């Protein structure tokens, strides 16, 4: 009896609940972006542009916006709306403090005979990823504000960087050297939205290094494939300390907690050797580091900074 009482008194468990760790969100560059499904309007017509501001913590926030037009004689800002004043194109920007948004090209037309939009078309089986020396014939079409095609013969082509890719008067694009460039076509003074081309293999490579006394070695290749997806390839000689819950991340920090919270998790590794991941909607330079992370503890084992 005495022994049993002793046990009963003793077996009082200290079973803790799962607690909560609070952190500030990772610091990022604040972004003010504007968007509109409408890029052309009639003179006298007005519409609103959608704005989104994400603050330094990546949180969407409502902020007071000021507007700019590159040419108020064409498109003016009246009571936070874009007002068509006269025929032509103007670029609209938004401002919040020192932060400038992306620009939206607005075309103002006076009637249905005026060009409202210009679209560039790629031939079938081509995309915007080209090899050096490759050529591709582009075409451009013009439309009025109701979307009806307008026949025009004079097209002005332009490349933002002729050293990367040049384009002649007929729309023949010549890929020259590794890099990116934007192509635009102008018809009746109305310029298309830029079409970005990547020339040559878009890759970054780097070597892993361990941190905090942990071992990580091997190399990594980041490559944009023909579909525009980002491929991350760990080399066959990749070797790392692998604990339970060891993951590969793309991150803009090498620290564990910011990586776990703000990085892009590619997948878990359970053995050494080569492995490849493919992710969509991620640019080649969106993330600075490839991190080997012990996810449970948010502990960085090592990283690579591909160049």
């Amino acid at each position, binding site marked *: 009896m005495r022994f049993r009482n002793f046990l009963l008194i003793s077996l009082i468990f200290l079973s803790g609940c799962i607690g909560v760790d609070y952190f500030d969100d990772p610091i990022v560059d604040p972004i003010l972006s504007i968007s509109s499904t409408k890029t052309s309007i009639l003179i006298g017509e007005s519409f609103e542009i959608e704005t989104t501001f994400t603050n330094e913590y990546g949180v969407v926030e409502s902020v007071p916006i000021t507007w700019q037009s590159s040419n108020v004689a064409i498109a003016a800002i009246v009571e936070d709306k874009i007002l068509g004043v006269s025929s032509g194109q103007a670029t609209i920007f938004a401002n919040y403090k020192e932060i400038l948004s992306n620009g939206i090209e607005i075309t103002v037309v006076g009637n249905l005979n005026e060009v409202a939009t210009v679209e560039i078309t790629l031939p079938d089986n081509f995309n915007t990823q080209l090899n050096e020396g490759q050529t591709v014939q582009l075409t451009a079409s013009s439309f009025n504000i109701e979307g009806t095609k307008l026949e025009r013969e004079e097209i002005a082509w332009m490349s933002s960087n002729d050293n990367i890719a040049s384009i002649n008067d007929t729309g023949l694009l010549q890929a020259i050297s590794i890099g990116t460039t934007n192509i635009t076509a102008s018809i009746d003074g109305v310029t298309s939205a830029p079409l970005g081309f990547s020339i040559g293999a878009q890759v970054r490579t780097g070597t892993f290094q361990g941190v*905090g006394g942990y071992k990580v070695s091997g190399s990594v290749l980041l490559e944009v494939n023909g579909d525009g997806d980002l491929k991350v390839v760990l080399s066959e000689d990749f070797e790392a300390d692998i604990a339970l819950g060891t993951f590969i991340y793309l991150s803009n920090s090498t620290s564990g*907690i910011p990586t776990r919270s703000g990085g892009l998790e590619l997948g878990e590794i359970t053995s050494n050797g080569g492995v490849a991941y493919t992710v969509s909607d991620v640019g080649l330079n969106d993330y600075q580091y490839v991190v080997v992370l012990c996810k449970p503890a948010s502990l960085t084992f090592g990283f690579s900074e591909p160049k």
Partner: protein
Amino acid sequence: MNMKKYIAFSIVFLFAFKVTYAGGGWVYKKGKGFFKAGQSLIYADRFFDGNGEVIDITTIGLYTSSLYGEYGLTDKLTAIGYFPFFVRSTLNEIKFRQSGNSVPGDEVNALGDAQIGLKYGFNQENPIVFSVGLTVGIPLGETMGGEGRILQTGDGEWNQLLRIDASHSFYPKPFYASATLGFNNRTQGFSDEIHYGFELGYTPTEKITVIIKSYTVNSLYNGDGVMTMSNGIFSNNTEYFSIGPELIYGITSDFGFTAGAGFAFSGKRILASPNWSAGLFMTF
């Protein structure tokens, strides 16, 4: 002071500090023994990395409920058993203040790794007593627990700790001192370890013993070159130097409680937070 009680108290302390650090150089007489039900708690948001630097980590909790016993098989041979019958490991949820985004936590409740051993005492009638012991770790714990299979209550390996202990009582002065040196042979790619520790005990009254102790573990770094899924960051090539106090209070002549803490002053690959412990013990 009663020497028998004094020795019993020292055994209690030694267990509370490190399970395998039991009794110092003293052993139980045949048919005599000691039993303890204990709790220990580690709640850590910092970690000694492989370079010994303290870094922030997601908070990890480890709660252990255990039973421990020693029994004198002969006047010189004592059997030792340790059974962590309930181990709870938790990983905190992460919440971000500004966005409200969160990363869910995790938990596992399971057995821990048990230990059994034998200790042989010699020179027991002399001022400095010695014992040699062998303790075997039994991998009953969970090595891939929780929703994410990333929590552990055991290391998944059989290990053998061979040790020698020496103790000296300053009786009739109410002090004692002990020292231990051990070699922990680990399997499954874990590195072997050298253990050593010291403790000083002071018994100001018959009911109270106050102890200060240190314990050091050094890795021999002779395991697998890299960590693997089974010998993860918290269990392989772990090193630490800790110092901690212990209080033992005897409610009756053979029943009492203990409370203590271990503070790691340096370490590698180990949680950088105190290990709190408490327990009830009885001798027979």
